[in-house]
């Protein structure tokens, strides 16, 4: 018998003379470990972005100013200190013996040292006590005291005082600042009431640390994931639906409608994707401060539908001339019924496969656009935008880039594997078509 070009042709029953029939290749088992793993991964990611924020109730936009670019930390108590800018030691303690640390907390470290004969200006270095070298030159001063307030964290610092002219090292001392928070920040964060005078407050843990503005990375990954996955699912849903309808109409109507529709598809395909994506987003006018998700989705819809339109149109065209479709038409079956009974079941698997491959692509597009600053705008965030934030601190805090990048890779990989599995699954349908 002639092998039908069409995969889902009605099975010819009772053809016992199946001499040409080849034993079907063993299909890969549907539930291969890879598929299970990726399905689990998708599930985990979905749970991470939906249930996660319920379990981890930190605002992704809260900026812990006293914990900028901090590593992973558990919850701890901090002392509330009121800082009033400038500080100078009181007159009676004017000549300490050696380098004295008046106060050391993460808001300020106050140093005081004896005036040394012959030294006019002092240079103060701050370095990590565990590393060699002087560290960073903080300031030069003619006074014999200094207040360091620059991004202090809870590590051990070594302060070195040197003669600014000759570079001669004079004094050094190590200190571990006590955790503290300024009263202003505590009030801002709502940790203490205005005018309150609590001495200690608890600040929450940051299991993945904080970013360059002191925001909890875990909470941001969850919030960013929600945007990324939302765009990743909604955009393909829209453009595949649109493409399907467009392609189906072209395929069903045929003739000049088909010609016209397909030339339009050619035109849209010819538009350079990235350039037009950026142009569209500018033209759609994302006003300042709007989160930019909708324009992003619309831009993807406008540019990404032709692929699926072509796919469906070809399929519908082939189906239309199939004998079983012609037969039902001769039998007087209405168009809508033909679509419902013959067309839809035969194109649906194809649509599903196209959809499952479009998801990772959309996630990636969103990430890419956000990464080059063309995606969502703050305070909304996405994995791509998080990468964009993280790249600025790549050298000093690689974590801030690697974590969102890892999540993007994981989700893209998982959705791709699932798409593969889905395609294999639809292949195995040797198809009874209900007619």
């Amino acid at each position: 018998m002639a092998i039908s070009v069409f995969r889902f042709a009605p099975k010819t029953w009772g053809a016992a003379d199946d001499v040409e029939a080849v034993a079907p290749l063993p299909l890969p088992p549907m539930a291969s470990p890879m598929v299970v793993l990726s399905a689990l991964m998708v599930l985990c990611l979905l749970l991470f972005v939906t249930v996660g924020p319920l379990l981890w109730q930190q605002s992704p936009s809260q900026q812990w100013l006293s914990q900028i670019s901090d590593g992973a930390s558990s919850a701890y108590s901090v002392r509330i200190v009121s800082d009033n800018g400038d500080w100078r030691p009181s007159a009676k303690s004017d000549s300490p013996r050696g380098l004295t640390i008046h106060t050391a907390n993460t808001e300020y470290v106050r140093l005081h040292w004896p005036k040394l004969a012959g030294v006019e200006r002092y240079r103060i270095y701050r370095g990590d006590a565990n590393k060699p070298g002087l560290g960073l030159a903080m300031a030069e001063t003619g006074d014999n005291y200094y207040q360091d307030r620059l991004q202090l964290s809870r590590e051990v610092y070594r302060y070195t005082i040197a003669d600014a002219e000759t570079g001669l090292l004079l004094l050094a001392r190590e200190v571990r600042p006590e955790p503290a928070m300024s009263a202003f920040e505590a009030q801002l964060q709502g940790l203490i009431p205005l005018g309150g005078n609590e001495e200690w407050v608890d600040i929450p843990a940051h299991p993945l640390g904080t970013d360059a503005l002191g925001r909890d990375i875990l909470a941001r990954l969850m919030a960013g994931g929600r945007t990324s996955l939302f765009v990743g699912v909604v955009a393909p849903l829209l453009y595949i639906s649109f493409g399907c309808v467009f392609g189906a109409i072209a395929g069903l109507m045929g003739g000049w409608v088909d010609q016209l529709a397909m030339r339009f598809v050619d035109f849209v395909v010819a538009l350079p994707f990235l350039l037009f994506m950026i142009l569209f987003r500018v033209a759609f006018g994302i006003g300042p401060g709007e989160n930019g998700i909708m324009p992003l989705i619309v831009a993807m819809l406008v540019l990404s539908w032709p692929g699926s339109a072509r796919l469906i149109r070809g399929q519908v065209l082939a189906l239309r001339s199939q004998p079983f479709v012609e037969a039902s038409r001769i039998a007087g079956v209405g168009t809508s019924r033909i679509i419902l009974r013959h067309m839809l079941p035969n194109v649906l698997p194809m649509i599903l496969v196209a959809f499952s491959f479009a998801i990772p692509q959309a996630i990636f597009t969103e990430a890419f656009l956000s990464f080059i600053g063309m995606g969502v705008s703050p305070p909304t965030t996405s994995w791509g935008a998080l990468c964009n934030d993280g790249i600025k601190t790549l050298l000093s805090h690689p974590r801030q880039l690697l974590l969102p990048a890892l999540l993007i890779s994981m989700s893209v990989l998982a959705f791709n594997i699932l798409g593969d599995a889905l395609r294999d699954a639809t292949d195995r349908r040797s198809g009874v078509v209900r007619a």
Partner: protein
Amino acid sequence: MNIAKSLASRFAQTLSGQWRWLATFLFCFSASLPVNAQAVDAANAKVTLALATEPPTLNSAVATDTIASFVLAHIMEGLLVYGADGELAPGVAERWELDANGASFWLRETARWSDGKPVTAHDFVFAWQHALKPSTASQYAFIFYPIKNAEAVNSGKVPAAELGVVAVSDYELRVEFGQPCPYFLSLAAFMTFLPMREDIVAHWGGRYAADGDKLIFNGAYTLDKWVHGAHLRLRKNSHYWQADAVKINEIDMPYITADPSAQFNLFRDQQIAIAPLDTGLLNEAVERGFDIEYFHTGSLFFLEFNFREGRITANHSFRKAVQRLIDPDLLVNKIIGLPGIKPAYSLFPVTVKGNEKSFREEYPVMRVDPDIAAAREHLQKAKAELGFSEWPPLVLLAGDSPRALQEAEYYQYLFKKGLGIELRIDQQVFKQRLEKMRRGDFDIVAAAWGPDYDDIMTFADLFASWNDNNRGRYDNPLYDRWIRLAQESNDARTRFNAMAQIQRLVVEDVPILPTYENGALYVQNPRLKGVRRSIFGGDPLFRYAWIEE
């Protein structure tokens, strides 16, 4: 001048962020191609550098940015120049006299253009008239306004020949003032005051200075090569009157990238001699043991409110609320986190000179402490005055450098948390931001201003009602009166007292909210000596530099 974040990110402003990374990678490949490229080459007295961006123009009449200022400081020489220690030194002018009504300059006869012709007083007269012509549309025309008739020439009311500048002879220039200008000498060292050759400008017309071969030089260097967007090279000018004193023979700039990481990598690989540092690079530089150097760029960063009709930011109580909310100290120490950047409380940075010492030492500024309770009270008052129950969202216009965005996100959080106001960030590339500022398309803008000349007036008259750079259209008769008083006076004490009043007014009336005074951190090849980093007269300046063997 408007700060384009010259050394930080200018190229980045065409497309945001990550194209620069692509560029970094491309650089990694291209950088390996030139053989024996060396940061400093003592044998040939050659220095290799990276530029943040190519100069938008080298036409001194219309140039406004810091990169053009850097290149022009090397290839051109004005009447006066800034010397090795930042003092005013003789340039083309051998000597000068400044009085209440004007200034006279006597030019040295040895000064030559790079084609061997002498530099004459006529070249200056032509250049200044040319810059003031309405058809030139120089943004810096206002800087000539102390000169007699300058404003009228600029608006086209009188012909250019009426300008109060006369070439008494080939080598004597006389300038008449329209108003007292005790700081005219430092103006004469500014780039818009550089000489221009009439024949060259006439020959090239609109294309003058568009390419390396379409201009002529009278400075220490000539522009030997200019491949747009890719490469600039300066070579010692043999016709320069003081050519013997110029130690560096060649300044090569084969890299144009605004990405500090790319520049830092080039520095680390000994490809360039100087690289700026940004927050993320600081620790890396410390760990590698580089000497980190610093200088105060003298520029002020501030938030400017919009006072145009119908803008709610014009409400005084609202501005007071913002003033009590934003703590420059917190911003500098926590968010920016670079040593050397100073919190700003005054319109005048600490580098502005006063009578004898720094102006800020002589006239300390009143500091307003941050206080959330007070801020909320002020906001309540503002709401009552405007009849709002809910404060509408505001638009913050910000630059697109990483630091600018970080700052903007910080303000966004602060406004939301502290005052319950939604702040929308409008991130724009440099040119677009300037355009939006000019049109007044913002509620609050994060702006910056760098001094043009070494006088307090370069900051003070910024918010006078007639100044074009007063982007918020702040209009306060009291402010204007103090400025007029200072402009019409020749007495230093009167001027500085008026300035103290201005300083007080800015704190009390909050037309702007100063945030920080910028400092630049950089690393420099230890063999390269005498490079002048400065606020005025081109930065960095290699005119007095040398390479240690």
